[in-house]
């Protein structure tokens, strides 16, 4: 039972972690909490669904085709949709407010969030051959993952959980490589520490910001596909709760810290899973899992406001 819940918690946490990275990367560079990031995650899921529909909704395909053709194409579709929308959002809603008071882009972000939800709700179904998006839409089954589980050491592990954890591992490794081993990554670190000085080193700060948004969006899109595979349906509101949880994870780990976002996500997922099972009586069960997740957040904010992995030293000491 414990291991079952641990696996559940970790895979849920991996989902949170993938989304949380987007909050933290963008915050690290522009000091903006992008409250529309949950909708980027939602766009990723819809992008993947769109690719499936454009492929002619293939059913009953082989595992090989599912894993090697369908899934990669759906992920690419999701990433293109999410990154495209994120860049558009940055250009239209955030960049004009770059030098405005901090509250202005925050409100703009909330506006973008609501707009994106409504755009998908109202217009997705208008495209010929696409399902109505007013309610939940069934996410396509991918042969080899959907509904398949393997038994590891007496515990049933859903393939979708393995997919999510693997996706987190691959994305984190890629991100680490990008930030620590490439020229653009170094430019990102420099910009997060001091944008004005970074620009004097010839770093195009606008481009670094676009890269940050694109990276966050790509990971959110992967999370969107993972979410679809895990719950078998998606809807235009899915970004709200997931976004809030991922934001919690980012704060939990220490906002601005990429490793922190991953750790925060995993911790949050495991706490939720364990609380569901081990808290007895009235306050247990899945109805209360969100409460326990946010209780953890409050405790961390009170006793360790810099987050689990955040350092006490402020950048500009």
């Amino acid at each position, binding site marked *: 039972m414990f291991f079952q819940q641990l696996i559940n918690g970790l895979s849920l946490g991996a989902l949170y972690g993938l989304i949380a990275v987007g909050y933290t990367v963008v915050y690290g560079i522009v000091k903006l909490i992008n409250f529309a990031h949950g909708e980027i995650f939602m766009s990723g899921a819809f992008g993947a669904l769109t690719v499936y529909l454009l492929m002619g909704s293939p059913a009953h395909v082989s595992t090989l085709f599912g894993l090697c053709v369908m899934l990669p194409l759906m992920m690419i579709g999701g990433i293109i949709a999410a990154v495209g929308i994120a860049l558009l959002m940055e250009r239209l809603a955030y960049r004009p407010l770059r030098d405005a008071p901090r509250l202005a882009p925050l409100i703009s972000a909330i506006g973008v969030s609501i707009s994106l939800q409504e755009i998908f709700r109202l217009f997705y179904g208008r495209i010929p051959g696409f399902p109505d998006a007013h309610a939940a839409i069934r996410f396509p089954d991918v042969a080899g993952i959907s509904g398949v589980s393997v038994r590891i050491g007496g515990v049933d592990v859903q393939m979708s959980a393995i997919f999510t954890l693997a996706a987190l591992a691959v994305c984190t490794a890629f991100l680490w*490589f*990008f930030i620590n*081993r*490439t*020229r*653009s*990554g*170094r*430019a990102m*670190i*420099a910009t997060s*520490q*001091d944008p*004005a*000085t*970074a*620009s*004097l*080193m*010839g*770093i*195009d*700060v606008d481009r670094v910001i676009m*890269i940050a948004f694109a990276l966050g969006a790509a990971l959110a899109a992967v999370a969107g596909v993972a979410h679809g595979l895990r719950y078998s349906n998606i809807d235009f509101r899915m970004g709200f709760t997931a976004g809030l949880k991922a934001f919690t994870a980012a704060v939990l780990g220490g906002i601005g810290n990429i490793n922190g976002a991953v750790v925060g996500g995993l911790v949050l997922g495991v706490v939720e899973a364990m609380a569901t099972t081990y808290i007895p009586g009235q306050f247990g069960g899945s109805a209360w899992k969100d409460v326990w997740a946010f209780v953890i957040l409050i405790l961390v904010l009170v006793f360790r406001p810099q987050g689990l992995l955040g350092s006490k030293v402020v*950048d*500009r*000491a």
Partner: protein
Amino acid sequence: MSTATTTRDLSAIEHGQMLLDARQVTMRFGGLVAVNKVDLQVHSGEIVGLIGPNGAGKTTFFNCLTGMYRPTSGEVVFAGKLLPPRPAKVARAGVARTFQNIRLFQNMTTLENVLVGMYCRTHANALDAVFRTPRHHREEADCRARAMELLGFVGLADHVDDLARSLPYGHQRRLEIARALATEPKLLLLDEPTAGMNPQETKEAEELIFRIRDLGLAVLVIEHDMRFIFSLCDRVTCLVRGEVLVTGTGAQVQADERVVEAYIGAPFEPEAPAGTQTREDDHGTDA
């Protein structure tokens, strides 16, 4: 700006051609004119000093040159081309600067700081770095070698892996210079490079600036230490309340009584520092 003396022509013959030509640069903040129609030229291979009491607009003028501010009017021409008011483009054109209050990337190592400086001279773009790994590695290796060379040049070879914020003050200043040199500038702008230094460190900084000039760079330096300025600079421009008061050789500027007046007001205490009291005196003498 007719107050400028005519020694510029002499220096132009002595040194190379005109590198930086700031024409009538003006910076207004609301009603305050921080920099008013400043003309300033720097020729290649030349060290030019910029002096003036606190609040004279020296740093604001630097900010106008480097694109951190967009001048209200006037233009900055560098190596025959108009400099756009965008810091990244200014850096690429070949102008680098240091700051009065040191602005290093505190949480990076000494080496990493210099590597960031090389950003604008390397070419791998975001995707290149991931996909063309061999070439990326070679470029990275070249950068490291060059960065080590620069750190040796400023005397920080023993502190390569120290975090910038853990370096002693004097070393931080040197690192800022090394990072600026890493952008491969033709013109280096130094904002009070010896502020807070003891006489020994000041002397070392002076030697470092001479060695930088010998590399073929032009240097424009803001400084309050007059001994430092007059021993270092080929020409000196004195800025008072946003305007050029006088431009000339060190001796000429030193002898100009308006400069003395601007700094210490009435000649009653020659050692008085250029502090806040100077500003009060300004109003009395200049109005």
